């Protein structure tokens, strides 16, 4: 055999690496999204019910706050959260939640089951980042109905406020929505990865609900004897109060000095959360025991 000829493996790896990693990961993600859509369309009645159910819940949720604003002009005196400012805040909450629920929630929920049943074996065999694979392999398209709902609500609220965001705000807003998604995803994947050590972890959804409950309200309401410690804890330790507040501030009003510093901190916190969750996930995978077949 001519030793100068490349082996079959060398030819293949050359071909594989010829395509850049972002482009390959992008193509894989598109395939995940496509396959999920094909599957959702197979059960179209279920898909339609899910969309109607999500939109109905959102309408009731919005209706509840419309009712509250019948009795008060703003959430807290002097906080700047009038009716339409708060609706812009709600829209931001919906943006973040719908993205998390569409792309990450079904996967992190399934991860616990994959770990318990040994189904994670197949993810570990693939020549692709395992965290990427288990985090994005299913897309819940019906959750994106809330994304459209949020876009309408934000547009309507800004129209009512009479505020036209400038270019910097329009560019920073998606960045900070992305940061919010990143922070919540980090919490989720960290919690799901602990299933490798715990064997079973079914509290994911409960934990998600508790945490998003805190992030769903303006940071200004966390004040006083009980509020201040929560404010500090959920801003600096588990920064869920920055998830919605920072992008919402950017959209409805000019930021003051403290808010700008928190906006910078949100970037650092997002990077730290993602790095920490990646470390936990990697450590957990080393302890993976699979399940007997």
């Amino acid at each position, binding site marked *: 055999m001519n030793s100068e000829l490349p082996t*079959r*493996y060398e030819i*293949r*790896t050359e*071909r*594989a690496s010829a*395509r850049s990693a972002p482009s*390959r990961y992008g*193509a*894989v993600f598109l*395939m*995940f999204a496509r*396959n999920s859509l*094909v*599957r959702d369309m*197979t*059960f179209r009645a279920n898909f339609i019910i899910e969309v109607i159910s999500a939109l109905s819940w959102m309408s009731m949720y919005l209706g509840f706050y419309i009712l509250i604003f019948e009795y008060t002009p703003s959430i807290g005196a002097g906080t700047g959260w009038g009716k339409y400012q708060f609706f812009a805040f709600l829209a931001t909450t919906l943006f973040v939640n719908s993205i998390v629920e569409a792309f990450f929630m079904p996967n992190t929920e399934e991860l616990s089951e994959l770990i318990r049943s*040994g*189904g994670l*074996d*197949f993810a*570990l*065999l*693939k*020549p*692709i980042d*395992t965290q990427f*694979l288990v985090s994005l392999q299913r897309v819940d398209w019906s959750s994106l109905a809330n994304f459209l709902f949020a876009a309408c609500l934000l547009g309507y609220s800004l129209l009512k406020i009479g505020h036209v965001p400038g270019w910097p705000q329009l560019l920073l807003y998606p960045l900070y929505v992305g940061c919010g998604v990143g922070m919540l995803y980090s919490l989720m994947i960290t919690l799901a990865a602990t299933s490798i050590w715990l064997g079973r972890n079914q509290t994911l959804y409960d934990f998600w609900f508790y945490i998003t409950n805190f992030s769903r309200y303006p940071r200004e309401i966390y004040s006083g004897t009980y509020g201040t410690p929560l404010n500090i804890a959920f801003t600096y330790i588990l920064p869920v109060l920055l998830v919605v507040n920072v992008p919402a501030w950017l959209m409805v009003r000019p930021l003051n000095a403290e808010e700008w510093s928190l906006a910078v901190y949100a970037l650092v916190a997002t990077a730290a959360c993602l790095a920490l969750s990646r470390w936990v996930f990697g450590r957990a995978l*080393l302890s*993976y*025991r*699979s399940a*007997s*077949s």
Partner: protein
Amino acid sequence: MAIIEIERLAKSYRVYQKKEGLLASVGGLFRRQHREVQAVRDIDLHVEAGEFVAFLGPNGAGKTTTLKLLSGVITPTRGMARVMGHVPWERSNAYRRRFALVMGQKNQLWWDLPAQESFRLHQQIYGIEAAEFERVRDELTSLLDVRSLLGQPVRELSLGERMKMELIAALLHSPEVLFLDEPTIGLDVIAQHNIQTFLRHYQETRGITILLTSHYMKDVAALCRRVVIIARGRIVYDGSLSGIIDQFSGHKVVTLVFPTEVVPTGLERFGEVISHQAPRVKLKVDRNGIGELLSAILAEHTIEDVSVEDPPLEEVIAEVFSSIAKEPAPV
């Protein structure tokens, strides 16, 4: 040169010992007892490129654990393994592009979608060029005769058809090493035969290295020249299939056919009578004294026909497994 090198590889698990009853369960919240299960105990194994090796052993022997260690799914407690020069549990993408694992009891295809959608996903994950992907897919679907089923949701396929699709998914990237964990489990004889034929053809034409675990002796006899018996986490035999009988079976089966329906009495003194259907009698006799024994029988009786055979392989292996199970557990 060995494509798979295993040296003193060991894997143990800490398992929670739950006691019976409610009080013990509540007590377990505060204080738990664990025991160490040694799934694989310091095994050494070298496999050359192009070999088709069978792993045999009773349930819980450590066969699947060994395959999972070699696939990098789990990490060992100690020891070293290299497959094509890679340490499996480092989980490098370069290694993961070069091997595949098929598990008969688990499935990796999207349940609600046709297999062709999962194949396309594999194409993207492994970065297979479109033309090569289509060529390999078409070749495999023709060989396994499932081309017409590509558009059918996986959940609507029979078990045998599903296993064929699993094999195709695993082979799309043309792996150089293939680990098969009970690929024919639960399949009917026709499906088993089809998969055996395919695997034999694929291995012969591609020259890839295959490690197979199976409880079906027909799989092993049809496919593998080399057999490794693993029991209680240790390798107790490594050699040819026929060598198992030589090493582990101390007897042969002698069939005597008498000229009349009346079978003489007193045959017990030549060996254990294992079947008696006049005029045919089967005796289980010590394999070292066959010559003398036959001379003695022929001197005393008129025999129309005689044959000497090895005992069935399944029987010998069952005896091996059973004797290992009776031995005290190694420390």
